[in-house]
């Protein structure tokens, strides 16, 4: 079963060690990821991969996923993405 957002959902904060995730409705089936991160130079690839994997596990389609990261660890990013996705359905 695919999960397709029907409204904007967001989760998390902009405090350090956390991230703010916003899910918006996309015009087609694709999932577009935008990442802004204070540690992008060091961990950008790994964070993008974590976001992508989490979206796949949640069977997300048709979404724009924007993550503003303040140095969150992977499990925090996963939790925030999952919460934001659930809030957008």
């Amino acid at each position, binding site marked *: 079963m695919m999960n397709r957002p029907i409204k904007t959902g967001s989760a998390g904060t902009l405090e*350090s*060690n956390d991230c703010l995730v916003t899910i918006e409705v996309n015009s087609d089936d694709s999932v577009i990821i935008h990442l802004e991160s*204070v*540690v*992008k*130079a*060091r*961990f*950008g*690839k*790994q964070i993008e991969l974590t976001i992508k994997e989490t979206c796949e596990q949640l069977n997300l389609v048709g979404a724009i996923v924007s993550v503003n990261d*303040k*140095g*969150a*660890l*992977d499990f925090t990013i996963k939790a925030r993405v999952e919460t934001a996705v659930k809030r957008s359905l």
Partner: protein
Amino acid sequence: MKYEPKNPYQYIGSYNPRTYQENKSSRVSHIVKQVETMDELFNRIQLRDGMTISFHHHLRNGDAVMNLIMDEILKRNLRDITVAASSVFPVHTSLATAIEAGVVTQVVSAYMSGFVADVVSEGKCLYPCVMQTHGGRALSIESGKLKIDVAFIASPAMDASGNISGRQGKAACGSLGYAIADAYYANVVVAITDTIEPLNHIDIAKECVDVMIVVDSIGDPKGIVSGTTRITKDPVGLAIAKRTIELMDAAGYIKNGMSFQTGAGGISLAVAAQLHQKLKKESIQGSFASGGITGYLVDMFEEGLFERLYDVQCFDLAAVASIQKNENHYSISASQYGNPYNPENIVDQLDVVILGASEIDLDFNVNVTTGFDHRILGGSGGHADTAYGSKFAIIVSKLVSSRISVVVDRVTTITTPGETVDALVTDYGIAIHPRHSELIHQLKKTTRLPVVSMKELLDTANELCGLPQIIEPKEKIVAIMEYRDLSVIDVIRQFDPL
């Protein structure tokens, strides 16, 4: 390039650059010339292309003097100037402008942050800058390696005959320790003040001063207390401080006559606050506290927990107030503080110093100069001096904050060599330098302190954060890391923005 350290770092003592010159304070029947305008000043000092000028940083981010002089230099079409400033702060925008315009071609300093650090990191300064230590700067000037043509000394108060005090005036900053070597050895010394009044205490005698000028304001006293001077409230930081005290105690350093220095970071200050409680509770009296002095150290001193304060720089207004009134709160020069070849230097008498780190590696080398991306963010200040001099140098830090680990495989830049660092205290455990094998054994046997290896800390950090991508700099060398004995310990290459 006028100032170029060449000897490779081995270990201090292998290289002695000392060839002292006579200092200016012994000049007799000397009269200080007072000038009225900047034109008159520049006519008198005859500043020319290729010269080296110097500044001190006691007014920190409130300093107006460097910008004032740099703006004049920019107007006067001078070229190839070297700026030897004891530290550079974000307020110093005119220096950044002068570097970008090619007017200033080299900076020699113990610390830089803000716009100047950015333009240097980006490779915009013609010659590599030299990053010194506070003690090394004094040595380089006293030994004649670093020749200053004109020293511009921001002077909080002067008397009519040209003596200088840091303790009075609108921008009173207490000690003038970092300006002493400049005053003694610069070819021409210019004192810039906004307050003329009779002085209670003289920091720099008129014999050192050649020219004086009165301006509207030398700086904003509010900027003096910039920087981190608050105790952390974070429970993790407090827990690290508590372990640090337990470590100092177990290693036998908390006892009558102990000497102590701490940086002004949040966790370091928490260590000072907890040491305060412990000394008081157990009626222990220390001999001295030194360094950049904060109100926390003043409180301990005023309660009699330390007999003396040796103050090279006042970090806050409480320290300024104390130096004005307390007899045993002494001003010391940077040379008395940390020059390795000054036989009475204070750092060599230190028992324990508490320091921060932005990176520490498996060999205990510490970086407080650059970020992992090679961008300059600070500098040694007294870090390398006190680590070397003290019997026990403790680095305090959280292991991970905002996904960045303080423990790394290899530091991006060596500020302080690992052989002079003794311990790292983090929230995930304490690493002791392997050369202290007996202490490690003792701690494991008789205390509950979580002693681990640096490798274990690194593994924990990697487990939490993942393996970081390595960031390569560009080829160009933008700065040379000069150790306190004036040898070259590392270089900084140009920052490569992604």
